């Protein structure tokens, strides 16, 4: 409204060039120039390497495009219809969700246990932090090399350890019954340190007075943990869980490198299926359609989480 009125007022008294409205307008124009100047470099990269591929992928998903460039005509929703009826796609979705369920719980709980214990203030703080956080600094390829070796059925440390308790040797990554569990254990080892640090930072922000007051009231350490520590950490727990679920749904690197999605597709995730239909099957259009089905799943999960966390008032 105001912007529509201001110019006419300004032109009405154009002769006295220094009316406030005109000055505001000029200033606004200068600000617009400066603002776009500042954001321009980011916007150029953003458009070139995010917006363009995302929109192009959306277009491709409606075509039968292959690597050779054949089949580039628009075929409507045929790819989506095929994807929704594709048992392999649903299996990869199932694997992805199963991986997310199996990994998220320990990644939150173990991180919390680590942080609470380290925060007790034992000597050697840097050593504890180093032990738990160091794996996070490793590339997925290093983690995969480590764990493929740990899980080696004949020579690996894991089987020789479980053997002490009289358990039969297990082909951790080659047996469809254990492969996903094997991948999840390696993943927890790899990334729990990140959540651990976030919890540790949150723990150190809980005011000491609350514990003092609770101690005066005769509350023991367990009581203090459940009635002070856990409630105070709720926002952190919600945030960690939300981010962890979104990160786990995008799993690819370590599974691809440890099992290649095997045995027999038992650990193949959705991102790996997208990758394989695109780069091994050369079906760009179809691969893009699966990408967008996957994207829709991520958006739905995000919206659900957002609704859940705002209802619980954990967004402080």
């Amino acid at each position, binding site marked *: 409204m105001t912007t529509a009125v201001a110019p006419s007022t300004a032109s009405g008294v154009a002769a006295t060039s220094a009316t406030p409205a005109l000055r505001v307008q000029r200033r606004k124009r200068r600000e617009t120039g*400066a603002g776009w100047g500042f954001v321009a470099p980011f916007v150029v990269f953003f458009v070139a*390497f995010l917006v363009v591929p995302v929109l192009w992928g959306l277009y491709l998903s409606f075509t039968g495009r292959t690597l050779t460039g054949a089949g580039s005509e628009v075929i409507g929703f045929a790819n989506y219809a095929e994807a929704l009826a594709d048992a392999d796609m649903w299996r990869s979705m199932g694997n992805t969700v199963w991986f997310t369920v199996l990994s998220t719980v320990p990644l939150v709980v173990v991180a919390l246990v680590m942080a609470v214990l380290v925060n*007790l203030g034992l000597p050697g703080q840097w050593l504890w932090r180093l032990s*738990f956080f160091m794996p996070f600094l490793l590339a997925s390829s290093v983690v995969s*090399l480590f764990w493929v070796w740990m899980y080696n059925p004949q020579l690996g*440390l894991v089987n020789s350890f479980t053997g002490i308790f009289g358990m039969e040797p297990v082909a951790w990554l080659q047996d469809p019954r254990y492969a996903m569990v094997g991948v999840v254990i390696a993943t927890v*080892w790899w990334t729990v340190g990140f959540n651990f*640090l976030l919890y540790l930072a949150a723990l150190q922000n809980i005011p000491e007075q609350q514990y003092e007051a609770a101690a005066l009231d005769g509350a023991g350490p367990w009581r*203090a943990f459940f009635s002070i520590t856990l409630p105070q950490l709720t926002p952190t727990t919600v945030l960690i869980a939300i981010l962890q679920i979104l990160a786990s749904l995008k799993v690819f690197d370590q599974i691809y490198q440890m099992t290649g999605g095997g045995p027999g597709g038992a650990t193949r995730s959705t991102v790996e299926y997208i990758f394989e239909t695109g780069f091994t099957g050369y079906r760009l259009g179809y691969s893009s359609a699966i990408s967008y089905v996957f994207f829709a799943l991520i958006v739905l999960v995000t919206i659900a989480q957002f609704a859940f966390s705002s209802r619980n008032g954990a967004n402080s």
Partner: protein
Amino acid sequence: MSSQLLTAPPAPESPARTGRDARNARNARRARPKSGRPRLTPGGIAAIVVLLVLAVSWLVPFAWAVATSLKSEADAGSTTVSWIPAHGFTFDAYTKVLAEGNVLTWTFNSLFTSVVITVITLVISTLAAYAFSRIDFRGRKLLFVIVIGSIIIPPQVAIIPLFYEMLTLNLVDTYWGIILPQVIAPAMVFVLKKFFDQIPIELEEAARVDGAGRLRVFLTIVLPLSKSILAAVSIFVFIWSWNNFLWPFIITNDTALMTLPVGLQTVKSAFGVQYAQNMALAILAALPLIIVFLIFQRQIIKGIATTGLGGQ
């Protein structure tokens, strides 16, 4: 929407912090809240035992890899699983892996691409975040919503069209092909904007009255106040790009251009059953970042806690 997921960054450093203030802040940090020091009660002992078991479990895969890398191939492949090799420790595996030469090339590629990615990300994200925070330009709100909204897009969704875009631009198997798509970090723009929002505007207004332009104010007043957040963002972006696998894996076929994570993956099958060499390679690949961490431990932990939630 994702903005709700992010924690507020710390308040900017006050420009004139006295020595005593700094010392008080340090002391306050040292005397940080504890949920009760462990005493030698049964509960306290149990806590210590659990912590020790966890720490040992977390260190064992490292220790086992180091032990294996120091064995001869014969000992490493022996069916009697043992920490101490029958024929003594040796550096043979390291000598062989280094003589191949690829590890050093890959380390250089990783270092080069990660540094360039970090620098470009820092420059473009800081400029954009400052504009979003301070300059009232036309289209600002809409653009900010688009940029923040894009945090929700999984990069994997665009990876196939992105590859064909790079093919069209002739950037497959080049450093720029590896670097360019990795410099977009909307979450970091958000973290930086929140930080700039907290800097008192009076400092900038005074300088602008004195006739300083936007860029000059930004470079001489805002940036020096933002060292902590710039360090945090750099650390985060650097670790992330150093370890990034999927994109460099897709965009490089030429062994000479591979980054460390990608090269490691291709060599795994080539080495076959040479366990000691595999582990030597893994340790060599892990070392640079671990050394960096040991040197900058405090800053890295603080940086992760500050930017971590925004960056995943």
